[in-house]
């Protein structure tokens, strides 16, 4: 089986978009939506031939959102835009962002799994089994085994077995809006003062909820209402409520994420 590590081959639209956005990380504030959109569309053009319908659709959907965002950015003001249209676009964008973050989350989880696999692969199990002197004790395994029983065992082995469900999380998507999460945090954080992000998402087992909560924290940071500290990669993330907002732009509201 050809197991190639495909670094520059984009596995899908998220892969590509993540790559395009994060490669600019060195110069965060220079990231240009225009450049991203252009690069995205250019790559899409090149990939076109080799895509299956499902994947191509995903690519196109994202391209559409990106293009719309780009168009919007080119407009001088927003007054002439229908509010509803505007809100719908934000929603699209938030959803795209959430899906990107989810894809990235599993990408990073898989990197840790590789480390686990590599570590486990360095140990080899003992499989020696019984010493001959005990062999006589083993009851004849085929005692009472009929061809029918063997057939049943084969069917059992090849039939999906309901395994004990691992209750890590459940499937039903919970669509908490970022605005709601911001409101909740703005209510909780002043009381806590400072809290780990882990504590803030305690009890949330749906990734999307965690991601939405994260976006809300980010929103608060942007508004100068909270501060985020992280000692190192993978270190615990702490969120601190700022009693005196760094910037004072009036009542707490969620402009970017309205909807």
């Amino acid at each position, binding site marked *: *089986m050809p*197991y190639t*590590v*495909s670094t520059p*081959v*984009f*596995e899908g639209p998220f892969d590509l978009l993540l790559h*395009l*956005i994060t490669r600019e990380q060195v110069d*965060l*504030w*220079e*990231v*240009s*939506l225009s*450049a991203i959109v*252009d*690069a995205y569309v250019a*790559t899409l053009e090149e990939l076109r031939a080799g895509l*299956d319908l*499902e*994947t191509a659709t995903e690519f196109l959907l994202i391209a559409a959102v*990106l293009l719309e965002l780009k168009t919007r950015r080119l407009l001088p003001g927003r007054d002439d835009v229908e509010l509803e249209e505007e809100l719908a676009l934000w929603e699209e964008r938030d959803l795209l*962002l959430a*899906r990107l*973050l989810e*894809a*990235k*989350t*599993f*990408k990073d*989880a*898989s*990197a840790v*799994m*590789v480390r686990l*696999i590599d*570590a*486990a692969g360095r*140990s*080899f*199990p*003992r*499989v020696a*089994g*019984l010493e001959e002197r005990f062999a006589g004790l083993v009851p004849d395994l085929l005692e009472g085994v009929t061809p029918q029983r063997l057939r049943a065992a084969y069917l059992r082995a090849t039939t*999906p077995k*309901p*395994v004990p469900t*691992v209750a*890590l*999380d459940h*499937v039903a998507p919970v669509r908490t809006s970022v605005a709601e999460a911001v409101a909740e945090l703005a209510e909780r954080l002043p009381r806590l003062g400072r809290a780990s992000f*882990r504590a803030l998402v305690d009890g949330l087992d749906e*990734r999307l909820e965690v*991601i939405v909560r*994260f*976006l809300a924290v*980010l929103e608060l940071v942007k508004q100068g209402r909270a501060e985020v500290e*992280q000692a190192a990669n993978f270190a615990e993330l702490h969120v601190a409520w700022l009693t005196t907002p760094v910037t004072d732009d009036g009542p707490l509201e969620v402009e970017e994420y309205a909807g």
Partner: protein
Amino acid sequence: MAPEAARAVEAVLMVADGPVPPQLLAELLELPLAAVDELCEALRADYEATDRGFVLARVAGGYRFQSHPDLAAYVERFVLEGQSARMSAAALETLAIVAYKQPVSRAQVASIRGVNVDGVLKTLTSRGYVAEVGRDPGPGQAVLYGTTPLFLEKLGLDRVGDLPPLADFVPGPDVVEALEHGLRAGPPPGEGAPAPGETPTPPDDDEHGAGDG
């Protein structure tokens, strides 16, 4: 002198051909489960302290002896069949989604990855890391996938719950900021024209990632 029970654990694990569940050890030794776990932990620590070439590990729901990881070079030369090939990034990401979201349907995995995952799931199934574990009770009765004990052995885990919590992988603020910023519609601070010639490095291969694995 080592207590009889600890010696008995050593003897039994020595003739076992797979991980021995602690419940079975408890039954054989007529000890409570907690005592068995304590015994095994003491043995594990003992081997570590005396710098043995093997370890007592808890894998896939049982205890077993295995070679010490830092002696892999010697054992690899001895073990006949080569280690399985490395998995592709697509296969690993798919495996991660199945591991954390199980039981999960193919469509759910595909929606997270944004690509068709039929081929990758088939590969993972044929390698025994993933199996059909049931059917969605809803309409359509989609096949649901989950990980197998072989997956646990492959990762050296006792149970799926021992995977690092997914929350640990939620991207850090820098990444979120970058993504968020990249998709911002309003004019960014210091908006400049994109640098000329900023065409992306095209992937050097066709998109066949969706189907391989």
